[in-house]
């Protein structure tokens, strides 16, 4: 994974980048291991159960996302891509021990107010039946989309209630999530590498924050559900954050904010 980041970093400064999305579809088959699931659960706050956490298949698809985005055929430079939104739908509970066929492709290369955005789409199937869909939207600041087509971003409610929980997020959270997700983007790992990319300190992975928030709703989320999040202000490490949850029709609205009220993440969980 680190090698891919390095390759992408070199590729970013070389001329000859593609101008449109490649039609590439990357695939892998994987049966999650108990140890991986246990490690992921400990970092994100999920119990070790026979059903995979709703967010877990994302870390199975993520290596394919990186491979696709690091390729020369991908029109945007991987270093500097910002994860701005994520949408997951689990069609049913996925059991530990099921063999998962994971497919990843890119689509919706479109304009964003601050550059261009692209969706990395992951599909997980068991024996030919789709069980899980993921859509990760990334922003390339200052980049230009081929057409003037405006990208879609989720319309998420603002949740502004009292804190359901206060999290003390330790400084090593980025390194710990990197170890279970394979996302070794230097902005998450330590303050020095994060500074090189313009952040005052290391920042938490958006998908860690999303997973941690969902884990807090353990037992309250339907097995078949759609979890949509928008990432806002980066969560600097270490820090203290607040989780806000509000019951909605057929699910939950939630937000993660800092103690001064600045929002890191907003999200919704709905029965699928």
């Amino acid at each position, binding site marked *: 994974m680190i090698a891919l980041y390095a390759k992408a970093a070199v590729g970013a400064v070389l001329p000859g980048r593609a101008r449109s999305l490649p039609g590439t579809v990357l695939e892998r088959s994987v049966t999650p291991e108990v*140890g991986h699931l246990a490690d992921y659960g400990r970092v994100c706050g999920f*119990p*070790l*159960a*026979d059903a995979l956490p709703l967010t877990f298949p994302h870390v199975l698809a993520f290596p394919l996302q990186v491979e696709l985005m690091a390729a020369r055929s991908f029109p945007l430079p991987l270093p500097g891509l910002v994860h701005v939104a994520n949408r997951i739908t689990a069609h049913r509970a996925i059991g530990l021990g099921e063999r998962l066929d994971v497919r990843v492709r890119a689509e919706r290369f479109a304009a964003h107010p601050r550059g261009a955005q692209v969706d990395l789409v992951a599909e997980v199937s068991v024996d030919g039946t789709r069980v899980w869909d993921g859509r990760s939207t990334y922003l390339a600041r200052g980049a230009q989309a081929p057409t003037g087509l405006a990208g879609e971003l989720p319309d998420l409610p603002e949740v502004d209630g009292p804190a359901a929980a206060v999290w003390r997020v330790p400084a090593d959270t980025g390194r710990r999530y990197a170890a279970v997700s394979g996302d070794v983007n230097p902005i998450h790992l330590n303050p020095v590498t994060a500074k090189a990319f313009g952040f005052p300190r290391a920042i938490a992975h958006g998908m860690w924050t999303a997973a941690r928030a969902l884990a807090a709703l*353990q*037992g309250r989320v339907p097995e078949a559900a759609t979890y949509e999040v928008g990432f806002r202000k980066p969560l600097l490490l270490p820090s203290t954050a607040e989780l806000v949850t509000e019951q909605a029709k057929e699910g939950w609205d939630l937000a993660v904010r800092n103690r001064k009220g600045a929002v890191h993440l907003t999200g919704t969980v709905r029965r699928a």
Partner: protein
Amino acid sequence: MPSTPRRAAVIGGNRIPFARANGRYARASNLDMLTTTLDGLVARYGLAGERLGEVVAGAVLKHSRDFNLTREAVLGSRLAPSTPAYDVQQACGTGLEAAILVANKIALGQIESGVAGGVDTASDAPIAVNEDLRKVLVAINGARTVQQRVKLLAKLRPGQIVPDIPRNSEPRTGLSMGEHAAITAKEWGVSREAQDELAAVSHRNLAAAYERGFLDDLVTPYLGLTRDDNLRPDSSVEKLATLRPVFGTQFGDDATMTAGNSTPLTDGAALALLGSDEWAAAHKLPVLAHLVDAETAAVDYVHGRDGLLTAPVYAVPRLLERSGLTLQDFDFYEIHEAFASTVLATLKAWEDVEFAKDRLGLDAPLGSIDRSRLNVTGSSLAAGHPFAATGGRIVATLAKLVHEKGTGEGGRKARGLISICAAGGQGVVAILEAA
């Protein structure tokens, strides 16, 4: 509140397969296993979103962070978060004592439903810091000035890095449970052959119970395990005879207790669902059995003459007297197999004329039991024994057994006796009767 106590109903149960320590569940915590087992129970009986009267469970080996273990499991489960919960701990008696507590509240009309049981992991066991180190750390935490802290830091010694690992031994005697049991086995002249035979039967019975589907609605697979992985369906007296003794080796050739006729360290969780008959009917759940009565006894194994695991020997006669029953009035006996020798010594004590007179204060001994009614679907020697989980396993198993049998001799309701010995010289026993 009803004017006379009613009998609490046992509706069923759920457990995960028990796993040998440091094996399949090595990465699972007590909270993981208890929550999973609770969610399995909720799924089996359609209780999602329900507010139950209470959930009572416990663990013997417990991290300090798990002080509210059972409540945390409820909050993480699909039960309504308005379901109260509390932890109990009575060593290996935990699960059955929890069931008695829930049943008593149901009997008094204080609650209409409840879940009882326990969980234990010998793999994810708490390891504490060295006691000397802990004292220094506590003092540093309480120090008010930098100078005080520096002074205290100077007290740290390299030897303090050695952690405190929990040991399966009695604090007051320093002997392990197996060593205690070996003394009792010697005292009662329990033979190696009899122990190995009991162990082989336990494996055979549990394997047969799995084969006939008896455990289908009692066990939910977990982390890839579908059956207890200590179970050896092909276990035999011949194979067991080859093992060397591990406890009571001070007795030389008279040492009889091996790894085969003693329970191994195991990880797992088990819960039983109880309720009033009315609650069960309102939820369209069949009642399997009623909890008739229960008794807990304790013995002075430290300075007295009784063995550590012999308290049930005293508990059962007291329970029988109160219920007006004899030891022979049962269709099933569930005697927890902490060690094969414990079961056999218990049976011998009940048969002994002198013991009855001198120690139990009875005119005649309780007598012997029909051994074909003992642990008919196997017990802890085969399934394993995650300490606090054993009571929940046995309550659900026996409830199903008496329900299957329906009636016993003379058309009376089928009846079963549970006997569980526990560390600390305690024993918990109970009677279940078919509904």
